[in-house]
């Protein structure tokens, strides 16, 4: 590097860097050695703007604020698609656009604050947010996953929400991966799996927030990049959502102490995970749910007493981003002193305090008259708090350390980073015929699929999460003593209302066409929600993709985002929040592109919710929706190691009509049980209904609405928009009436003590319930 670019400021641990004299290669080197993850273009923008030297505190501020994590460079940037088309931001052009056009009056605050807010009823709001914590979990599975949960809980607190439920969706490499094949520096999927699950359970359980919804997938595409989604749902009285920081208000920092943990977490999440994971030391965070539990109490008290004017969590970028964002969104400036921050260790440099991502911290803005009360509330709950600074009208971010100004930045400039430009190119998925001879014994196939790691019961994980704490869980992830897999969870958040919040997931990472994969995920989230009786569904999107600077990764991302717009609109379900995690690359290549869609619905009366298990001998079973020969990415093919086939597509009209009719039938009290048909097709869905009830069923594949001429395809295809519905015996006529115009057919009858399948050619197969259960759960009893 050129001589004299960097100068130590006497008396304090601050250095000054003179970018104005730096050459391109110096700029890149500075970005590298300071761990900024800023591109040359961004470094040059800094150089151009500042003729004076910048302190390390200031440069780090840019590194944080302009990071992928904090400002969603890729999703807000410009995308140049092959053929000259330019997309003016994926968020704006697709995700937010759908919401804007749907224009739902019940969307209260979307894409703005730490979490999306929708109306629950007249007086209450529901807050929802889902985040990823992939990189930290790959390095330190327990702490990474636990702090992921802790972080998303703070997003809910950050909109004054009382957390009422957690969500976790996890993707790992195969647990039986031979150790020898694991590249150096990566951790074995089993180690990651165990740690992540323990971490999620530990944090949620400790906080007393039920973990009620989620999914687990296994695939070799996740060996180098495990995926950990953590979500949280909260509730708050509408009038208590305050976001009104004023000049003269104090900035109060509360919660855990600030240390070196998690420094550069943001930039860490914005670069490839290419290095030996064990060497990325400072980035691991030690979870401390006990502190967050007390913090939660204090914040809800402060909310209820209306003592503060604003709140935000400290996530990526630590104090630097929280203070900057709060000042900026309120059109203000702020002065901050680093000397008052409670530290874990004494010798932190100012820039470290400034950007540390120590967990369990929140920032509040407090009017002068309430400052004493706020500090008292924190003290009562044994939460450390300090008055970090004060908001003013300067529009500047000014930071003091030992009497010296170590950072003085113009917020306008700080929050108008150069827009990223990404290039995208995409090769469409062309279905190849899959050469799969029709197997003779479908019973055997079914048992094999039921025991596939992706299908198997996840009970041994789910029961390590407390899903009953708070006493508000009306529909649990597992149904009854026999642990049937319910499609969605329902929380009854208010004491004197029967209404429930319905929480569901949709995720179909194995479908090879990114557009239809996204469509299927959206449709699945809605379908799962509908299965238990949810309606008026809001969506959250969470993209986990590879390096967006590579055109192919970007290409598939664009296709998936397009589907988000198309199907959010067509299915009448707005996005309210979301997040993207890009740069998921490892020595084994990019992560399998994975989109999680979370569905948040409501149900007017939790007592009317529908569950998965068959109820009554003699009831008819219906299939709703059309089964097509769509095997691409299905568990049926995947479990045989085969590719090809058509990708499941979504017919929005059929889907919408079906869910609407089904809800109507449920509200009329005609439906005894319902299950959505997804991975493993009708075969697995029906088997799950049987196992959950310990009650047999026969189905006749000849009656399944379809144009398919193979029994195995009928049984295992993963076509979308389908449900299995047990209709109360004496309600058949009424049900048929409501279902008019929607593809449906009676295919079976509940009864007996086995699962019987009648094939197209008249062959029949029969499997005992206990055989099913052994395959799916490994045990027979509860």
């Amino acid at each position, binding site marked *: 590097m050129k001589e004299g670019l960097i100068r130590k400021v006497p008396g304090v641990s601050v250095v000054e860097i003179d970018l104005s004299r730096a050459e391109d290669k110096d700029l890149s080197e500075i970005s590298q050695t300071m761990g900024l993850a800023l591109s040359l273009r961004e470094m040059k923008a800094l150089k151009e703007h500042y003729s004076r030297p910048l302190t390390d505190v200031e440069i780090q501020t840019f590194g944080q604020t302009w990071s992928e994590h904090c400002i969603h460079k890729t999703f807000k940037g410009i995308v140049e698609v092959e053929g000259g088309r330019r997309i003016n931001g994926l968020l704006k052009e697709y995700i937010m656009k759908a919401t804007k056009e749907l224009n739902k009056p019940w969307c209260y605050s979307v894409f703005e604050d730490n979490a999306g807010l929708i109306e629950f009823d007249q007086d209450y709001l529901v807050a929802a947010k889902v985040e990823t914590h992939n990189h930290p979990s790959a*390095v*330190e*599975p*327990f*702490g990474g996953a636990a702090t992921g949960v802790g972080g998303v809980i703070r997003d809910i607190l950050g909109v004054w929400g009382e957390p009422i439920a957690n969500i976790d969706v996890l993707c790992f490499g195969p647990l039986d991966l031979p*150790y020898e094949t694991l590249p150096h520096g990566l951790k*074995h999927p089993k*180690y990651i799996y165990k*740690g992540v699950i323990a971490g999620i359970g530990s944090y949620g359980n400790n906080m007393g927030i039920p973990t009620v919804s989620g999914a687990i997938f296994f695939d070799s595409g996740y060996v180098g990049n495990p995926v950990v989604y953590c979500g949280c749902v909260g509730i708050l009285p509408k009038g208590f959502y305050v976001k009104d920081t004023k000049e003269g208000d104090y900035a109060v920092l509360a919660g855990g*102490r600030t*240390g*070196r*943990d998690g420094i550069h977490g943001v930039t860490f999440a914005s670069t490839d995970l290419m290095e030996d*994971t*064990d060497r*990325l*030391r400072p980035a*691991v965070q*030690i*979870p*401390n749910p*006990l*502190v967050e539990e007390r913090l939660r109490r204090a914040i809800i008290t402060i909310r209820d007493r209306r003592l503060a004017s604003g709140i935000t969590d400290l996530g990526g970028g630590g104090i630097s981003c929280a203070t900057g964002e709060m000042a900026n969104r309120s059109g203000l400036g702020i002065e901050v002193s680093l000397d008052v921050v409670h530290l*874990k*260790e004494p010798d932190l440099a100012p820039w470290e305090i400034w950007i540390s991502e120590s967990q369990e911290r929140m920032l509040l803005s407090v009017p002068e008259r309430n400052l004493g009360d706020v500090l008292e509330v924190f003290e009562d709950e044994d939460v450390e708090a300090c008055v970090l600074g004060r908001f003013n009208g300067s529009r500047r971010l000014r930071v003091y350390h030992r009497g010296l100004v170590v950072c003085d930045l113009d917020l306008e400039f700080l929050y108008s980073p150069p827009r990223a430009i990404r290039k995208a190119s995409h090769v469409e998925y062309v279905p190849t015929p899959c050469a799969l001879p029709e197997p003779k014994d479908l019973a055997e196939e079914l048992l094999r699929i039921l025991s596939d790691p992706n299908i198997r019961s996840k009970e041994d994980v789910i029961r390590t999460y407390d899903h009953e704490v708070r006493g508000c869980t009306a529909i649990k992830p597992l149904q009854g003593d026999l642990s049937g897999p319910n499609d969605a969870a329902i929380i009854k958040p208010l004491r004197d209302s029967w209404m429930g919040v319905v929480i569901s997931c949709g995720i179909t990472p194995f479908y090879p066409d990114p557009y239809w994969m996204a469509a299927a995920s959206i449709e699945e989230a809605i379908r799962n929600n509908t299965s238990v009786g949810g309606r008026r569904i809001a969506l959250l999107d969470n993209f986990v993709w590879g390096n967006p600077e590579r055109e192919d990764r970007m290409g598939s991302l664009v296709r998936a985002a397009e589907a988000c717009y198309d199907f959010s609109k067509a299915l009448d379900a707005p996005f309210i929040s979301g997040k993207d995690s890009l740069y998921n690359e490892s020595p084994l290549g990019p992560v399998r592109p994975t989109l999680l869609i979370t569905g948040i619905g409501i149900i007017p009366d939790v007592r009317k919710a529908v569950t998965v298990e068959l109820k009554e001998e003699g009831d008819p079973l219906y299939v709703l929706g059309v089964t097509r020969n769509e095997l691409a990415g299905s568990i049926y093919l995947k479990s045989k190691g085969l590719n090809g086939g058509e990708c499941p597509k979504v017919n929005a009209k059929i889907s919408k009509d079906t869910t609407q009719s089904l809800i109507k039938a449920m509200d009329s009290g005609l439906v005894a049980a319902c299950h959505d048909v997804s991975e493993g097709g009708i075969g697995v869905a029906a088997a799950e209904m049987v196992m959950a009830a310990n009650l047999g069923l026969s189905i006749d594949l000849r009656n399944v609405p379809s144009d398919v001429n193979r029994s195995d395809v009928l049984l295992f295809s993963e076509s979308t928009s389908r449900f299995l519905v047990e209709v109360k015996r004496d309600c058949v006529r009424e049900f048929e009436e409501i279902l008019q115009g929607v593809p449906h057919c009676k295919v079976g009858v509940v009864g007996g003590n086995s699962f019987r399948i009648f094939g197209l050619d008249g062959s029949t197969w029969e499997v005992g319930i206990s055989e099913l259960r052994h395959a799916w759960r490994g045990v027979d009893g509860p």
Partner: protein
Amino acid sequence: MVRVEVKLKKGHFDPEGDVTTKSLRDLGFPVSGVRVSKVYTVELEVNDKERAMSLAREMCRKLLANPTKDDFFIEVLAGEGGVN
């Protein structure tokens, strides 16, 4: 038999140690700090000290410790079923 002690690395904050410190002080003990670590006493089916040591190291690497945040200390003990 080997004894493996797994400890949070220096510099990492130990929430359990912190809470334990407070509780002990509260109970009147003159304590200024506590660190908590875990000890695995592992019975190995091998009789060779060297081999026991290298196995233990391997166990730490693969399961018992995470070098990102933990230090580990191994001690090979004599004893039944262990090294003689």
